[in-house]
């Protein structure tokens, strides 16, 4: 009932009752959706199990950013640059596959403008952009007149500005649903409202996972992928292993509709510092853009408060204050609502993509912090290559779970 039964390993339990597939993916956020699509199109039978609804948590609670501007040269930037090349063709494929009735994923390469408003902030921004240029990012240092040509309402207090034409965005819920729809067309099954409650281990080889117990019964597959975003640590614990992913909360303010006055993604130059900080206390840094509807989205904040969802007015207040440094006209804007969610935070700021070295058959695709929407397609390509035993499109070793920087945070397999 779910396509070809798992046959590639001797441990595949053909005789047992319950659903089976080649791969079980836990989580129907954008990472799970992208992985499901990629694996299903590669011919693997896939079951996605999701405890709630698809795209109902982190994938629905951000701004849909596909950014290269906020990444320093290194493995995450390489992953972002690679993922950036995948979006244009994927958008075309999804449109062709799903037809005009399927909602647009609103992919737009609108470009990002990073500005400094202090003398102290100018040179670090320009130096940072120079290192990015050397790493292959299109980063264009522009003068104040050009910056005002891009963004006429921008503050006059500019000390430096860099334009990043590669920065883009999607509507992340629509993108997740489109990826899932495409996966279904390729044979994947997506089971929502189905929580995973335990691992099924091979009786002869207890270090091998052969399936999961769910609220809807046992499901078997030789490969199980955890793609549960900030909840991946909890899922890993349910499956008997340690994974050091923690939630990092963020909030966004939404103004009422107004004539479009902001045309790109505009960030304060200190945004990169906030993304890379490991400080648990509140940090805010301006990320401002207009939506097609005419509302303005104002972020961003980072704080580690567990899964606490309470409204925190002091966070919103700080975000609002800083936004006026970049766009003084926002002083008169009315705020319509706020929203927020949890980013999957890794202690070394890199995602985990690949096999779990402690449990055979267990894989990870988690921990992208605030960059998971943009990195989803690249993550799926890497994971699929790994699962198929093929060479990966970019070096996957920095994302391995057994990397040195994670060693202090990993317990032994239970």
């Amino acid at each position, binding site marked *: 009932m779910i396509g070809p039964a798992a046959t590639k390993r001797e441990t595949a339990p053909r005789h047992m009752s319950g659903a089976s597939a080649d791969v079980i993916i836990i989580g129907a956020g954008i990472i799970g959706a992208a992985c499901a699509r990629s694996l299903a199109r590669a011919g693997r039978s896939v079951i996605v199990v999701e405890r709630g609804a698809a795209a109902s948590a982190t994938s629905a609670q951000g701004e849909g950013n596909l950014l290269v501007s906020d990444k320093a040269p290194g493995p995450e930037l390489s992953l972002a640059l690679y993922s950036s090349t995948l979006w244009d063709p994927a958008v075309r494929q999804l449109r062709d596959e799903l037809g005009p009735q399927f909602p647009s994923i609103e992919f737009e390469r*609108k470009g990002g403008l990073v500005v400094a408003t202090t003398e102290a902030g100018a040179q670090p921004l320009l130096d940072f952009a120079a290192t990015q240029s050397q790493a292959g990012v299109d980063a264009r240092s522009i003068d104040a007149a050009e910056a005002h*040509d*891009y963004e006429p309402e921008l503050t006059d207090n500019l000390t430096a500005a860099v334009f990043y*034409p590669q920065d883009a965005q999607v509507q992340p819920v629509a993108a997740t649903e489109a990826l899932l729809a495409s996966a279904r067309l390729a044979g994947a099954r997506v089971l929502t409202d189905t929580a995973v409650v335990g691992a099924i281990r091979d009786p002869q080889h207890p270090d091998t996972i052969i399936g999961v117990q769910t609220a809807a019964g046992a499901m078997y597959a030789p490969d199980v992928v955890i793609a549960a975003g900030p909840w991946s640590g909890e899922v890993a614990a349910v499956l008997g292993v340690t994974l050091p992913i923690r939630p990092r909360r963020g909030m966004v303010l939404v103004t009422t509709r*107004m004539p479009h006055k902001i*045309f*790109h993604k505009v960030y304060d130059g200190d945004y990169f510092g906030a993304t890379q900080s490991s400080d648990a206390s509140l940090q805010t840094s301006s990320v401002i853009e207009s939506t097609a509807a005419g509302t303005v989205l104002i972020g961003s904040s980072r704080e580690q408060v567990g899964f606490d969802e309470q409204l925190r007015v002091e966070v919103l207040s700080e975000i609002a204050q800083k936004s006026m440094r970049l766009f003084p006209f926002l002083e008169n804007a009315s705020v*319509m*609502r706020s929203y927020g969610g949890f980013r999957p935070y890794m202690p070394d700021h890199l995602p985990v993509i690949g096999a779990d070295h402690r449990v055979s058959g267990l894989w990870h695709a988690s921990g992208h912090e605030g960059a998971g929407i943009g990195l989803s397609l690249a993550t799926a390509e890497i994971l699929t290559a790994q699962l198929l035993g093929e060479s990966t499109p970019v070096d996957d070793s920095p994302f391995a779970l057994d990397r040195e920087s994670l060693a202090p945070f990993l317990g032994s397999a239970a």
Partner: protein
Amino acid sequence: MAARILPASDDPIRPEPAQSLGLSLDGAPLSGITGQTIAGVVLASGRLSWRTSSHLGKPRGLFCGIGVCFDCIVTVNGERDVRACQRRAVDGDVVESQHDALPEVHL
């Protein structure tokens, strides 16, 4: 004494008798009564939408009706982005519908 026992004739909370009023929407005259919102006057005239969305130009009118969604915004006496569902109509109001086209993005 519970409120429901109060005879209607003794209820001190009674609205003033309604007065008729007139306003214009995009130049067309509409009539209503005092106490109605602008949205109320427009809906009563039989018109269900008075704004178009920026992205696809779809019709927009009263959605939530309680001031939350900002779908019903209009220009009133030259002031933009007024929620038609929250603004009491005043005799002589000049109401204009709004459309903000999507901007061309400069890359």
